[in-house]
C-alpha cells in the first residue's frame, strides 16, 4: 500500500521523536511517528518545566501538545497507542509491523523510544501500585498528609521529591542501597537538613505487605544481611529510568545498560538506523538534550536517504 510507504519512520513520540518529526516534515520528508502509549513521553509525566529555554514555565502536557501540533502542522503522520510486533531493520527498506497487522516501510528509521520509571521488581509491588506505592510525588503527595512514608532512591529526583513530600507527611525515611547519594550537593544538603527526613542506608526493600493498601515493608541491610519489617503508610519509588530498547536487541548494538550507542550523527551500527533522546548512550537526559538529538538525527537521516 502506497500510503504505508514513508521516507522516515520515527519510533517514539517524546521530545526527541517529535523534534525529529518537526524537522523531517518541514523538509518535506514523508514521515510517520509510531508511538506506544500517549505521544509526549516523559514530558507528559512532568508537572512543570522551568528549564526549557525560551519558555518560562509550562506544564509538560502543554509542551508536548505544542510539539505534537507543530509536527502535524508540517504534515507529519502520528499514530499513538500502537504496539510494534515485528521489525526488519537490516535491508535498504526498513519494515515495521504493528500489532493490528499493518506494515509500514521506510528508507530510514529513527529510534526515539526514551525510557520508563525503574521498578523495584519485588514481591507485592504490582499489587499495591496506587494503593500505597507511588512513582509520582507531585501527583499523590497529598494522600499522605500526616502519614509515615518511605522514599526509595538516592539520586536527585528521590532527594528533591523527598524534600517536597515533607510538606505533607509526618515522617519520611529515605531507603538507599549505598552509603552515599548520587544527587547534587545542594539536593543532598536539603534532605539532610530537613527534620522530617531520616536515612536507612546500605539497604533495600525486599517485599511489600498489606490488605487494601500497603502496611509493611521488608527491608534488608546489605552490610550485615539482616532484615526487618517496618510498618509504613506509603512508599514512593524514585530509582531512575530504564531505556526502552528491548524491542531492538536482535537488530542493533545495545550496551550492557540497555542504551543504544551512536556516533555524533546519531547513527547506530546499522545503516539507515539512527537513535535519539534518552534511549541513546549518553550522560545528560533532559528535554533540551532530547530535542538536540532529535534534530541531529533528522538532519542526518535526510542526508542518508538523499545520498
Amino acid at each position, binding site marked *: 500500500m502506497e500510503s504505508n510507504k514513508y521516507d522516515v519512520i520515527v519510533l517514539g513520540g517524546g521530545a526527541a521523536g517529535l523534534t525529529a518529526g518537526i524537522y523531517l516534515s518541514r523538509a518535506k520528508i514523508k514521515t510517520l511517528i509510531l508511538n506506544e*502509549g*500517549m505521544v509526549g513521553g516523559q514530558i*507528559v*509525566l*512532568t*508537572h512543570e518545566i522551568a528549564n526549557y529555554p525560551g519558555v518560562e514555565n509550562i*506544564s*509538560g*502536557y502543554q509542551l508536548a501538545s505544542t510539539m505534537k501540533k507543530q509536527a502535524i502542522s508540517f504534515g507529519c503522520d502520528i499514530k*499513538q*497507542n500502537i*504496539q510494534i510486533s515485528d521489525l526488519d531493520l537490516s535491508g535498504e527498506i526498513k519494515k515495521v509491523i504493528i500489532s493490528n497487522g499493518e506494515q509500514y516501510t521506510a528508507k530510514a528509521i529513527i529510534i526515539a523510544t526514551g525510557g520508563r520509571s525503574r521498578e523495584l521488581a519485588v514481591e507485592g509491588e504490582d499489587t499495591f*501500585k*496506587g*494503593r*500505597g*506505592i*507511588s512513582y*509520582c510525588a*507531585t*501527583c*499523590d503527595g497529598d*494522600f*499522605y498528609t500526616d502519614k509515615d512514608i518511605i522514599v526509595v532512591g538516592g539520586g536527585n529526583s528521590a532527594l528533591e521529591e523527598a524534600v517536597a513530600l515533607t510538606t505533607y507527611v509526618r515522617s519520611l525515611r529515605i531507603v538507599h542501597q549505598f552509603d552515599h547519594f548520587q544527587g547534587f550537593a545542594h539536593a543532598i544538603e536539603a534532605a539532610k537538613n530537613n527534620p522530617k527526613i531520616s536515612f536507612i542506608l546500605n539497604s533495600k526493600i525486599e517485599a511489600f505487605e498489606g*490488605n*487494601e*493498601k500497603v502496611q509493611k515493608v521488608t527491608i534488608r541491610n546489605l552490610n550485615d544481611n539482616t532484615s526487618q519489617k517496618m510498618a509504613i503508610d*506509603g512508599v514512593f519509588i524514585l530509582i531512575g529510568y530504564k531505556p526502552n530498547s528491548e524491542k531492538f536487541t536482535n537488530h542493533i548494538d545495545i550496551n550492557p545498560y540497555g542504551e543504544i550507542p551512536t556516533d555524533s550523527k546519531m547513527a547506530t551500527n546499522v545503516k539507515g538506523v539512527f537513535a535519539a533522546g534518552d534511549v541513546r548512550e549518553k550522560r545528560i537526559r533532559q528535554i533540551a538534550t532530547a530535542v538536540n538529538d532529535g534534530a541531529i538525527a533528522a538532519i542526518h537521516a535526510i542526508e542518508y536517504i538523499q545520498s
Partner: protein
Amino acid sequence: MTNLEHVITTSQYQEIIENNENVMICCGRMGPMCVPVYDAMEELTEESKNIKFVDMLFDIPDAHVIRNAPECAGFMGLPFTMYYKNGKVVKATSSIQSKEQVQAILNEVF
C-alpha cells in the same frame, strides 16, 4: 481540560450511570498520572460506541461519590477510575493505566 464530557454534580453522575449500560468515569486532576488515562478514553470514545466515557475533577465537592466509594477504599494514587454496568460498579482502579490496560478491562467487564 479534556475533550470528554465532564461530570460536575452527583445528580448528573446518577443520571449517567443509570441511563447508560456501560460507563467509565475517570476522576482525577490534569496531572501526569491522569492525562494518559483521559487521552486513552478520548481515543476509545471513537472506537467503543457502546460505552460512555466521562471524567470528573477529583477536587470538586460532588466527586465524593467516587472519592468515598467503598470500591476506592485503599486507593492512594490518582486517578480513581470506575467502571459501571447497569448502574453497578464492576471494576475500579487507582493510578495510571495505559490504553492497552484500559482496553483489557473494557473487554473483561463490558
